[in-house]
Protein backbone atom coordinates (compact mmCIF):
# COMPACT_ATOMS: atom_id res chain seq x y z
CA UNK A 1 0.00 0.00 0.00
CA UNK A 2 2.78 2.41 0.92
CA UNK A 3 4.25 1.49 -2.43
CA UNK A 4 1.06 2.66 -4.00
CA UNK A 5 1.00 5.91 -2.09
CA UNK A 6 4.46 6.79 -3.35
CA UNK A 7 3.34 6.78 -6.95
CA UNK A 8 0.53 9.11 -5.99
CA UNK A 9 -1.85 6.17 -5.70
CA UNK A 10 -4.79 6.34 -3.40
CA UNK A 11 -4.21 2.93 -1.91
CA UNK A 12 -7.13 1.01 -0.43
CA UNK A 13 -9.38 1.63 2.59
CA UNK A 14 -7.93 -0.12 5.63
CA UNK A 15 -11.21 -1.95 6.44
CA UNK A 16 -11.21 -3.57 3.02
CA UNK A 17 -7.53 -4.43 2.92
CA UNK A 18 -7.60 -5.95 6.42
CA UNK A 19 -10.63 -8.10 5.69
CA UNK A 20 -9.14 -9.30 2.42
CA UNK A 21 -5.81 -10.25 3.93
CA UNK A 22 -7.60 -12.11 6.74
CA UNK A 23 -9.65 -14.15 4.28
CA UNK A 24 -6.53 -14.90 2.30
CA UNK A 25 -4.51 -15.72 5.43
CA UNK A 26 -7.12 -18.08 6.93
CA UNK A 27 -7.39 -19.81 3.54
CA UNK A 28 -11.06 -19.07 2.97
CA UNK A 29 -9.97 -17.97 -0.48
CA UNK A 30 -7.07 -19.11 -2.62
CA UNK A 31 -6.59 -15.77 -4.30
CA UNK A 32 -7.90 -12.26 -4.50
CA UNK A 33 -9.10 -10.62 -7.69
CA UNK A 34 -8.87 -6.89 -7.31
CA UNK A 35 -6.91 -3.93 -8.57
CA UNK A 36 -3.18 -3.35 -8.43
CA UNK A 37 -1.68 0.11 -8.03
CA UNK A 38 -0.54 1.47 -11.35
CA UNK A 39 2.49 3.62 -12.00
CA UNK A 40 0.31 6.66 -12.50
CA UNK A 41 -2.37 8.12 -10.29
CA UNK A 42 -5.06 6.86 -12.62
CA UNK A 43 -4.04 3.52 -14.05
CA UNK A 44 -4.60 0.70 -11.57
CA UNK A 45 -4.91 -2.65 -13.32
CA UNK A 46 -7.03 -5.71 -12.59
CA UNK A 47 -4.82 -8.25 -10.83
CA UNK A 48 -4.73 -11.48 -8.88
CA UNK A 49 -3.11 -11.53 -5.42
CA UNK A 50 -2.09 -14.84 -3.94
CA UNK A 51 0.15 -13.81 -1.06
CA UNK A 52 0.03 -11.33 1.82
CA UNK A 53 3.18 -9.81 0.43
CA UNK A 54 1.56 -9.19 -2.94
CA UNK A 55 -1.31 -7.34 -1.27
CA UNK A 56 0.95 -4.36 -0.65
CA UNK A 57 0.12 -3.32 -4.19
CA UNK A 58 -3.63 -3.82 -3.71
CA UNK A 59 -5.56 -0.66 -4.43
CA UNK A 60 -9.19 0.37 -4.39
CA UNK A 61 -9.90 3.98 -5.20
CA UNK A 62 -11.87 6.21 -7.54
CA UNK A 63 -10.04 4.94 -10.58
CA UNK A 64 -10.89 1.28 -10.10
CA UNK A 65 -13.63 1.40 -12.73
CA UNK A 66 -12.82 -1.92 -14.38
CA UNK A 67 -15.63 -4.46 -14.01
CA UNK A 68 -13.96 -7.61 -12.69
CA UNK A 69 -16.92 -9.96 -13.14
CA UNK A 70 -15.77 -11.19 -16.55
CA UNK A 71 -12.40 -12.26 -15.14
CA UNK A 72 -14.38 -14.72 -13.02
CA UNK A 73 -15.00 -16.87 -16.09
CA UNK A 74 -11.34 -17.87 -16.07
CA UNK A 75 -11.12 -17.71 -12.28
CA UNK A 76 -13.94 -20.25 -12.05
CA UNK A 77 -11.64 -22.80 -13.66
CA UNK A 78 -8.95 -22.35 -11.00
CA UNK A 79 -8.49 -24.43 -7.86
CA UNK A 80 -10.25 -23.04 -4.81
CA UNK A 81 -12.32 -19.94 -4.27
CA UNK A 82 -11.43 -16.60 -5.76
CA UNK A 83 -12.24 -13.53 -3.74
CA UNK A 84 -13.53 -10.90 -6.11
CA UNK A 85 -14.27 -7.27 -5.37
CA UNK A 86 -17.44 -6.20 -7.14
CA UNK A 87 -18.99 -2.76 -7.20
CA UNK A 88 -22.78 -2.54 -7.18
CA UNK A 89 -23.05 -2.31 -10.98
CA UNK A 90 -20.51 -5.12 -11.45
CA UNK A 91 -22.77 -7.50 -9.54
CA UNK A 92 -25.40 -7.23 -12.29
CA UNK A 93 -22.86 -8.56 -14.76
CA UNK A 94 -21.92 -11.37 -12.41
CA UNK A 95 -25.57 -12.41 -12.06
CA UNK A 96 -25.97 -12.44 -15.82
CA UNK A 97 -22.87 -14.61 -16.21
CA UNK A 98 -24.26 -16.86 -13.50
CA UNK A 99 -27.55 -17.16 -15.39
CA UNK A 100 -25.61 -18.22 -18.47
CA UNK A 101 -23.53 -20.77 -16.56
CA UNK A 102 -20.32 -18.95 -17.43
CA UNK A 103 -19.15 -18.50 -13.86
CA UNK A 104 -19.32 -20.79 -10.86
CA UNK A 105 -20.91 -19.20 -7.80
CA UNK A 106 -19.21 -21.80 -5.59
CA UNK A 107 -15.81 -20.69 -6.83
CA UNK A 108 -16.45 -17.03 -6.01
CA UNK A 109 -16.26 -15.21 -2.73
CA UNK A 110 -17.82 -11.89 -3.53
CA UNK A 111 -17.02 -8.82 -1.51
CA UNK A 112 -19.44 -6.10 -2.47
CA UNK A 113 -17.24 -3.05 -2.27
CA UNK A 114 -18.73 0.36 -1.72
CA UNK A 115 -18.73 2.72 -4.67
CA UNK A 116 -19.17 6.45 -4.80
CA UNK A 117 -18.82 6.71 -8.54
CA UNK A 118 -15.74 5.92 -10.59
CA UNK A 119 -13.43 8.40 -12.27
CA UNK A 120 -12.51 8.66 -15.93
CA UNK A 121 -9.12 10.13 -16.73
CA UNK A 122 -10.41 10.95 -20.22
CA UNK A 123 -12.88 13.33 -18.62
CA UNK A 124 -10.00 14.99 -16.82
CA UNK A 125 -7.97 15.25 -20.03
CA UNK A 126 -11.00 16.63 -21.83
CA UNK A 127 -10.85 19.53 -19.39
CA UNK A 128 -7.48 20.31 -20.96
CA UNK A 129 -5.55 18.93 -18.00
CA UNK A 130 -2.31 17.28 -19.15
CA UNK A 131 1.00 16.19 -17.76
CA UNK A 132 -0.65 14.63 -14.72
CA UNK A 133 1.80 13.76 -11.96
CA UNK A 134 -0.52 12.96 -9.09
CA UNK A 135 -4.19 13.18 -8.14
CA UNK A 136 -5.60 13.75 -4.69
CA UNK A 137 -9.19 13.12 -3.73
CA UNK A 138 -9.59 9.83 -5.55
CA UNK A 139 -8.95 7.75 -2.44
CA UNK A 140 -11.90 6.45 -0.45
CA UNK A 141 -12.50 7.40 3.17
CA UNK A 142 -14.76 4.85 4.83
CA UNK A 143 -15.73 5.21 8.45
CA UNK A 144 -15.85 1.87 10.27
CA UNK A 145 -19.64 2.07 10.23
CA UNK A 146 -22.10 -0.35 8.70
CA UNK A 147 -21.71 -0.76 4.95
CA UNK A 148 -25.25 0.20 4.04
CA UNK A 149 -25.04 3.80 5.10
CA UNK A 150 -24.89 6.63 2.62
CA UNK A 151 -21.45 7.87 1.75
CA UNK A 152 -21.24 11.50 2.78
CA UNK A 153 -19.15 14.27 1.38
CA UNK A 154 -17.61 12.78 -1.72
CA UNK A 155 -20.06 14.58 -3.95
CA UNK A 156 -18.57 17.93 -3.00
CA UNK A 157 -15.09 16.48 -2.95
CA UNK A 158 -12.61 18.04 -5.25
CA UNK A 159 -9.84 16.32 -7.11
CA UNK A 160 -6.56 18.13 -6.79
CA UNK A 161 -4.44 17.32 -9.79
CA UNK A 162 -0.74 18.12 -9.78
CA UNK A 163 0.60 18.42 -13.32
CA UNK A 164 3.81 19.49 -14.94
CA UNK A 165 1.90 22.54 -16.04
CA UNK A 166 0.72 23.49 -12.60
CA UNK A 167 -1.92 22.38 -10.11
CA UNK A 168 -5.51 22.05 -11.24
CA UNK A 169 -8.69 21.24 -9.32
CA UNK A 170 -11.85 19.57 -10.54
CA UNK A 171 -15.07 18.59 -8.74
CA UNK A 172 -15.20 14.80 -8.29
CA UNK A 173 -18.58 14.73 -9.99
CA UNK A 174 -17.21 16.26 -13.17
CA UNK A 175 -14.67 13.51 -13.66
CA UNK A 176 -17.11 10.60 -13.36
CA UNK A 177 -17.51 7.91 -16.00
CA UNK A 178 -20.62 8.35 -18.14
CA UNK A 179 -22.21 5.26 -16.59
CA UNK A 180 -21.99 6.76 -13.12
CA UNK A 181 -24.25 9.62 -14.13
CA UNK A 182 -26.96 7.01 -14.79
CA UNK A 183 -26.00 4.85 -11.78
CA UNK A 184 -28.22 1.80 -11.29
CA UNK A 185 -28.15 2.36 -7.55
CA UNK A 186 -26.00 1.38 -4.63
CA UNK A 187 -27.41 -2.09 -3.96
CA UNK A 188 -25.20 -5.07 -4.66
CA UNK A 189 -27.31 -7.76 -6.35
CA UNK A 190 -25.09 -10.67 -5.30
CA UNK A 191 -22.40 -10.88 -2.63
CA UNK A 192 -21.00 -12.79 0.30
CA UNK A 193 -20.26 -9.71 2.32
CA UNK A 194 -20.37 -5.97 1.94
CA UNK A 195 -17.59 -3.56 2.82
CA UNK A 196 -17.68 0.19 2.58
CA UNK A 197 -20.38 2.67 1.78
CA UNK A 198 -21.88 3.42 -1.58
CA UNK A 199 -23.53 6.40 -3.11
CA UNK A 200 -26.03 6.67 -5.92
CA UNK A 201 -24.39 9.11 -8.31
CA UNK A 202 -27.32 9.25 -10.74
CA UNK A 203 -27.81 12.80 -11.94
CA UNK A 204 -29.00 12.18 -15.51
CA UNK A 205 -31.80 10.30 -17.26
CA UNK A 206 -30.53 6.96 -18.49
CA UNK A 207 -32.35 7.22 -21.81
CA UNK A 208 -32.03 10.94 -22.47
CA UNK A 209 -29.25 10.51 -25.05
CA UNK A 210 -31.18 7.73 -26.79
CA UNK A 211 -34.29 9.87 -26.93
CA UNK A 212 -32.33 12.75 -28.38
CA UNK A 213 -31.25 10.52 -31.25
CA UNK A 214 -34.70 9.01 -31.70
CA UNK A 215 -36.01 12.52 -32.18
CA UNK A 216 -33.62 13.17 -35.08
CA UNK A 217 -34.53 12.84 -38.74
CA UNK A 218 -33.25 9.72 -40.50
CA UNK A 219 -30.60 11.86 -42.20
CA UNK A 220 -29.40 13.29 -38.88
CA UNK A 221 -29.40 9.87 -37.25
CA UNK A 222 -27.39 8.42 -40.09
CA UNK A 223 -24.92 11.29 -40.07
CA UNK A 224 -24.48 11.03 -36.32
CA UNK A 225 -23.66 7.33 -36.29
CA UNK A 226 -21.57 7.63 -39.44
CA UNK A 227 -19.41 10.24 -37.69
CA UNK A 228 -19.02 8.13 -34.57
CA UNK A 229 -18.56 4.73 -36.16
CA UNK A 230 -16.15 5.92 -38.83
CA UNK A 231 -13.69 6.36 -35.96
CA UNK A 232 -13.88 2.69 -35.08
CA UNK A 233 -10.52 0.95 -35.51
CA UNK A 234 -12.06 -2.44 -34.85
CA UNK A 235 -9.71 -3.07 -31.94
CA UNK A 236 -12.41 -5.21 -30.31
CA UNK A 237 -11.79 -3.61 -26.92
CA UNK A 238 -15.54 -3.06 -26.50
CA UNK A 239 -16.22 -6.70 -27.23
CA UNK A 240 -13.40 -8.13 -25.19
CA UNK A 241 -14.18 -6.09 -22.10
CA UNK A 242 -17.92 -6.78 -22.31
CA UNK A 243 -19.13 -9.26 -19.66
CA UNK A 244 -22.06 -10.20 -21.92
CA UNK A 245 -19.70 -10.93 -24.82
CA UNK A 246 -18.48 -14.01 -23.06
CA UNK A 247 -18.43 -16.30 -26.07
CA UNK A 248 -15.48 -18.65 -26.22
CA UNK A 249 -15.16 -17.66 -29.84
CA UNK A 250 -16.98 -14.64 -31.20
CA UNK A 251 -19.00 -15.03 -34.40
CA UNK A 252 -16.73 -12.38 -35.83
CA UNK A 253 -13.73 -14.63 -35.20
CA UNK A 254 -15.22 -17.84 -36.54
CA UNK A 255 -16.09 -18.66 -40.13
CA UNK A 256 -19.70 -19.47 -39.27
CA UNK A 257 -21.02 -16.34 -40.91
CA UNK A 258 -17.86 -15.56 -42.85
CA UNK A 259 -17.76 -12.20 -41.12
CA UNK A 260 -14.42 -10.71 -40.18
CA UNK A 261 -13.06 -9.63 -36.82
CA UNK A 262 -10.60 -7.26 -38.42
CA UNK A 263 -10.57 -3.83 -39.95
CA UNK A 264 -12.38 -3.57 -43.24
CA UNK A 265 -12.33 -1.31 -46.22
CA UNK A 266 -15.88 -0.15 -45.88
CA UNK A 267 -17.61 1.41 -42.94
CA UNK A 268 -20.67 -0.78 -43.27
CA UNK A 269 -18.95 -3.77 -41.82
CA UNK A 270 -18.08 -1.65 -38.81
CA UNK A 271 -21.75 -0.81 -38.48
CA UNK A 272 -22.63 -4.46 -38.98
CA UNK A 273 -20.19 -5.39 -36.23
CA UNK A 274 -21.70 -2.96 -33.76
CA UNK A 275 -25.31 -3.77 -34.62
CA UNK A 276 -24.73 -7.50 -34.30
CA UNK A 277 -22.72 -7.06 -31.14
CA UNK A 278 -25.49 -5.00 -29.60
CA UNK A 279 -28.08 -7.51 -30.82
CA UNK A 280 -26.20 -10.45 -29.36
CA UNK A 281 -26.16 -8.81 -25.96
CA UNK A 282 -29.71 -7.45 -26.21
CA UNK A 283 -31.61 -8.54 -23.15
CA UNK A 284 -28.32 -9.67 -21.60
CA UNK A 285 -26.49 -6.36 -21.44
CA UNK A 286 -26.64 -4.93 -17.94
CA UNK A 287 -25.56 -1.51 -19.19
CA UNK A 288 -22.33 -1.65 -17.20
CA UNK A 289 -20.81 0.88 -19.55
CA UNK A 290 -17.45 -0.85 -19.96
CA UNK A 291 -17.65 -0.67 -23.77
CA UNK A 292 -17.83 3.10 -23.73
CA UNK A 293 -15.20 3.32 -21.02
CA UNK A 294 -12.58 1.42 -22.98
CA UNK A 295 -13.19 2.63 -26.53
CA UNK A 296 -9.94 4.30 -27.58
CA UNK A 297 -11.86 6.47 -29.99
CA UNK A 298 -14.44 7.56 -27.43
CA UNK A 299 -17.38 6.11 -29.37
CA UNK A 300 -20.48 6.19 -27.13
CA UNK A 301 -21.17 2.48 -27.64
CA UNK A 302 -23.65 2.36 -24.78
CA UNK A 303 -26.05 4.17 -27.12
CA UNK A 304 -26.59 0.90 -28.99
CA UNK A 305 -27.21 -1.23 -25.93
CA UNK A 306 -29.38 1.35 -24.27
CA UNK A 307 -31.55 1.63 -27.35
CA UNK A 308 -32.33 -2.08 -27.08
CA UNK A 309 -32.87 -1.80 -23.34
CA UNK A 310 -35.26 1.09 -23.88
CA UNK A 311 -37.19 -0.80 -26.57
CA UNK A 312 -37.39 -3.92 -24.43
CA UNK A 313 -38.69 -1.91 -21.49
CA UNK A 314 -41.28 -0.18 -23.62
CA UNK A 315 -42.43 -3.18 -25.64
CA UNK A 316 -42.04 -6.15 -23.32
CA UNK A 317 -42.09 -4.62 -19.88
CA UNK A 318 -39.30 -3.16 -17.77
CA UNK A 319 -36.39 -5.54 -17.53
CA UNK A 320 -32.98 -5.10 -15.92
CA UNK A 321 -30.52 -7.80 -16.92
CA UNK A 322 -28.52 -9.15 -14.00
CA UNK A 323 -30.96 -7.96 -11.33
CA UNK A 324 -31.11 -11.63 -10.44
CA UNK A 325 -29.89 -14.87 -11.94
CA UNK A 326 -33.33 -16.40 -12.57
CA UNK A 327 -35.56 -14.24 -14.79
CA UNK A 328 -36.27 -15.42 -18.32
CA UNK A 329 -34.49 -13.15 -20.79
CA UNK A 330 -36.64 -10.99 -23.11
CA UNK A 331 -35.37 -12.56 -26.32
CA UNK A 332 -35.83 -16.12 -25.12
CA UNK A 333 -39.42 -15.50 -24.12
CA UNK A 334 -42.48 -13.95 -25.76
CA UNK A 335 -46.01 -12.87 -25.22
CA UNK A 336 -48.95 -13.76 -27.47
CA UNK A 337 -49.86 -10.11 -27.56
CA UNK A 338 -46.41 -8.80 -28.46
CA UNK A 339 -46.22 -5.77 -30.74
CA UNK A 340 -45.79 -6.44 -34.44
CA UNK A 341 -42.52 -5.30 -36.07
CA UNK A 342 -44.60 -2.75 -37.95
CA UNK A 343 -44.76 -0.72 -34.74
CA UNK A 344 -41.32 0.64 -35.58
CA UNK A 345 -42.74 2.58 -38.51
CA UNK A 346 -45.84 3.59 -36.58
CA UNK A 347 -43.84 5.01 -33.70
CA UNK A 348 -42.11 7.08 -36.42
Amino acid at each position, binding site marked *: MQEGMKNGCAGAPAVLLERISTLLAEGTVARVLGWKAGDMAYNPEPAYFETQEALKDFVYDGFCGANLSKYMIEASKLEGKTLVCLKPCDTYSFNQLLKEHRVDREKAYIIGVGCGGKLDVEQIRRKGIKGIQSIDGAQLVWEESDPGTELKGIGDDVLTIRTIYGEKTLPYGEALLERCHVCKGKEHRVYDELIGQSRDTKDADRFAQVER*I*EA*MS*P*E*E*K*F*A*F*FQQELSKCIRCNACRNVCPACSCRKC*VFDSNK*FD*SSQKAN*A*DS*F*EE*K*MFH*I*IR*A*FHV*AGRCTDCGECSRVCPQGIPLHL*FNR*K*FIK*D*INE*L*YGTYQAGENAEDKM*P*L*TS*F*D*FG*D*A*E*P*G*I*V*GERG
Partner: protein
Amino acid sequence: MPMKDEFKPKIVAFCCNWCSYAGADLAGSSRLTYPADVKIIRVPCSCRVNPMFILRAFEKGADGVILCGCHPGDCHYSTGNYYARRRMTLLFSMLDYLGVENGRTRVEWVSAAEGVKFSQTMNEFVEKIHSLGKNVRLEDLRCRKE
Protein backbone atom coordinates in the same frame (compact mmCIF):
# COMPACT_ATOMS: atom_id res chain seq x y z
CA MET B 1 -47.47 -3.95 -62.60
CA PRO B 2 -44.69 -2.17 -64.51
CA MET B 3 -42.85 0.60 -62.72
CA LYS B 4 -42.18 3.96 -64.34
CA ASP B 5 -38.56 4.44 -63.29
CA GLU B 6 -35.75 2.20 -64.46
CA PHE B 7 -34.63 1.36 -60.93
CA LYS B 8 -34.72 -2.43 -60.51
CA PRO B 9 -34.68 -3.05 -56.79
CA LYS B 10 -33.12 -6.14 -55.28
CA ILE B 11 -35.55 -7.63 -52.83
CA VAL B 12 -34.99 -10.68 -50.66
CA ALA B 13 -38.00 -12.44 -49.18
CA PHE B 14 -37.43 -15.02 -46.47
CA CYS B 15 -40.41 -17.37 -46.37
CA CYS B 16 -41.10 -20.06 -43.83
CA ASN B 17 -41.57 -23.45 -45.43
CA TRP B 18 -44.95 -24.25 -43.91
CA CYS B 19 -47.08 -21.18 -44.41
CA SER B 20 -45.57 -18.38 -46.42
CA TYR B 21 -43.60 -20.43 -48.93
CA ALA B 22 -46.77 -22.41 -49.52
CA GLY B 23 -48.64 -19.12 -49.75
CA ALA B 24 -46.19 -18.02 -52.43
CA ASP B 25 -46.76 -21.32 -54.24
CA LEU B 26 -50.50 -20.72 -54.06
CA ALA B 27 -50.00 -17.22 -55.44
CA GLY B 28 -48.09 -18.87 -58.26
CA SER B 29 -50.64 -21.57 -59.06
CA SER B 30 -53.34 -18.89 -58.87
CA ARG B 31 -51.28 -16.81 -61.34
CA LEU B 32 -51.30 -13.82 -58.97
CA THR B 33 -48.48 -11.68 -60.28
CA TYR B 34 -45.96 -9.56 -58.38
CA PRO B 35 -42.70 -7.98 -59.59
CA ALA B 36 -39.79 -10.24 -60.49
CA ASP B 37 -37.56 -8.13 -58.25
CA VAL B 38 -38.68 -10.33 -55.36
CA LYS B 39 -36.54 -13.41 -54.82
CA ILE B 40 -37.64 -15.93 -52.23
CA ILE B 41 -35.35 -17.82 -49.87
CA ARG B 42 -36.94 -20.82 -48.20
CA VAL B 43 -36.32 -21.30 -44.50
CA PRO B 44 -37.93 -23.86 -42.20
CA CYS B 45 -39.41 -21.19 -39.94
CA SER B 46 -39.36 -17.44 -39.53
CA CYS B 47 -37.38 -18.06 -36.34
CA ARG B 48 -34.53 -19.41 -38.48
CA VAL B 49 -33.87 -15.96 -39.91
CA ASN B 50 -30.87 -14.48 -38.21
CA PRO B 51 -30.61 -10.68 -38.15
CA MET B 52 -27.20 -11.25 -39.69
CA PHE B 53 -28.89 -12.61 -42.84
CA ILE B 54 -30.88 -9.43 -43.20
CA LEU B 55 -27.91 -7.15 -42.61
CA ARG B 56 -25.89 -9.31 -44.96
CA ALA B 57 -28.48 -8.81 -47.69
CA PHE B 58 -28.31 -5.04 -47.23
CA GLU B 59 -24.52 -5.13 -47.16
CA LYS B 60 -24.53 -6.94 -50.48
CA GLY B 61 -26.79 -4.35 -51.99
CA ALA B 62 -30.37 -5.51 -51.35
CA ASP B 63 -32.82 -2.62 -51.38
CA GLY B 64 -35.45 -4.33 -49.28
CA VAL B 65 -35.80 -7.41 -47.12
CA ILE B 66 -39.11 -8.93 -46.11
CA LEU B 67 -39.72 -11.84 -43.76
CA CYS B 68 -42.88 -13.91 -44.06
CA GLY B 69 -44.01 -16.54 -41.61
CA CYS B 70 -47.07 -18.31 -40.26
CA HIS B 71 -49.59 -16.19 -38.42
CA PRO B 72 -48.86 -15.94 -34.70
CA GLY B 73 -50.48 -18.99 -33.15
CA ASP B 74 -50.24 -21.03 -36.35
CA CYS B 75 -46.49 -21.64 -36.37
CA HIS B 76 -45.73 -25.17 -37.52
CA TYR B 77 -43.27 -25.31 -34.64
CA SER B 78 -45.88 -23.63 -32.45
CA THR B 79 -43.71 -20.79 -31.10
CA GLY B 80 -41.08 -19.95 -33.70
CA ASN B 81 -42.74 -16.86 -35.11
CA TYR B 82 -43.19 -15.38 -31.64
CA TYR B 83 -39.41 -15.32 -31.23
CA ALA B 84 -38.99 -14.03 -34.77
CA ARG B 85 -41.45 -11.27 -34.00
CA ARG B 86 -39.44 -9.98 -31.04
CA ARG B 87 -36.13 -10.31 -32.84
CA MET B 88 -37.32 -8.46 -35.92
CA THR B 89 -39.07 -5.75 -33.95
CA LEU B 90 -35.84 -4.97 -32.12
CA LEU B 91 -33.70 -5.23 -35.23
CA PHE B 92 -35.97 -2.96 -37.26
CA SER B 93 -36.08 -0.50 -34.41
CA MET B 94 -32.28 -0.45 -34.33
CA LEU B 95 -32.03 0.10 -38.08
CA ASP B 96 -34.51 2.94 -37.77
CA TYR B 97 -32.37 4.34 -34.95
CA LEU B 98 -29.34 4.23 -37.21
CA GLY B 99 -31.19 6.28 -39.80
CA VAL B 100 -32.09 3.49 -42.19
CA GLU B 101 -35.47 4.09 -43.81
CA ASN B 102 -37.71 1.67 -41.90
CA GLY B 103 -39.78 0.85 -44.99
CA ARG B 104 -36.88 -1.25 -46.27
CA THR B 105 -37.64 -4.00 -43.81
CA ARG B 106 -40.96 -5.68 -43.24
CA VAL B 107 -42.51 -8.69 -41.59
CA GLU B 108 -45.77 -10.12 -42.86
CA TRP B 109 -47.64 -13.19 -41.64
CA VAL B 110 -48.92 -15.13 -44.64
CA SER B 111 -50.68 -18.47 -44.30
CA ALA B 112 -50.60 -21.29 -46.85
CA ALA B 113 -54.11 -20.28 -47.83
CA GLU B 114 -53.28 -16.62 -48.45
CA GLY B 115 -51.92 -16.58 -51.99
CA VAL B 116 -53.77 -13.35 -52.58
CA LYS B 117 -52.29 -11.72 -49.52
CA PHE B 118 -48.83 -12.87 -50.55
CA SER B 119 -48.95 -11.23 -53.96
CA GLN B 120 -50.61 -8.11 -52.57
CA THR B 121 -47.94 -7.83 -49.90
CA MET B 122 -45.15 -8.22 -52.43
CA ASN B 123 -46.69 -5.66 -54.76
CA GLU B 124 -47.02 -3.17 -51.92
CA PHE B 125 -43.52 -3.83 -50.68
CA VAL B 126 -41.91 -3.43 -54.09
CA GLU B 127 -43.82 -0.19 -54.57
CA LYS B 128 -42.58 0.99 -51.19
CA ILE B 129 -38.98 0.20 -52.12
CA HIS B 130 -39.42 2.09 -55.38
CA SER B 131 -40.58 5.10 -53.42
CA LEU B 132 -37.52 4.80 -51.14
CA GLY B 133 -35.09 4.26 -54.01
CA LYS B 134 -31.71 2.60 -53.84
CA ASN B 135 -30.32 1.41 -50.53
CA VAL B 136 -27.22 3.55 -50.06
CA ARG B 137 -27.02 3.61 -46.28
CA LEU B 138 -26.33 -0.03 -45.62
CA GLU B 139 -24.69 -1.07 -48.85
CA ASP B 140 -21.04 -2.01 -48.85
CA LEU B 141 -19.47 0.30 -51.41
CA ARG B 142 -17.24 -2.47 -52.67
CA CYS B 143 -20.32 -4.34 -53.86
CA ARG B 144 -21.52 -1.46 -56.00
CA LYS B 145 -21.20 -2.08 -59.73
CA GLU B 146 -19.70 0.94 -61.51
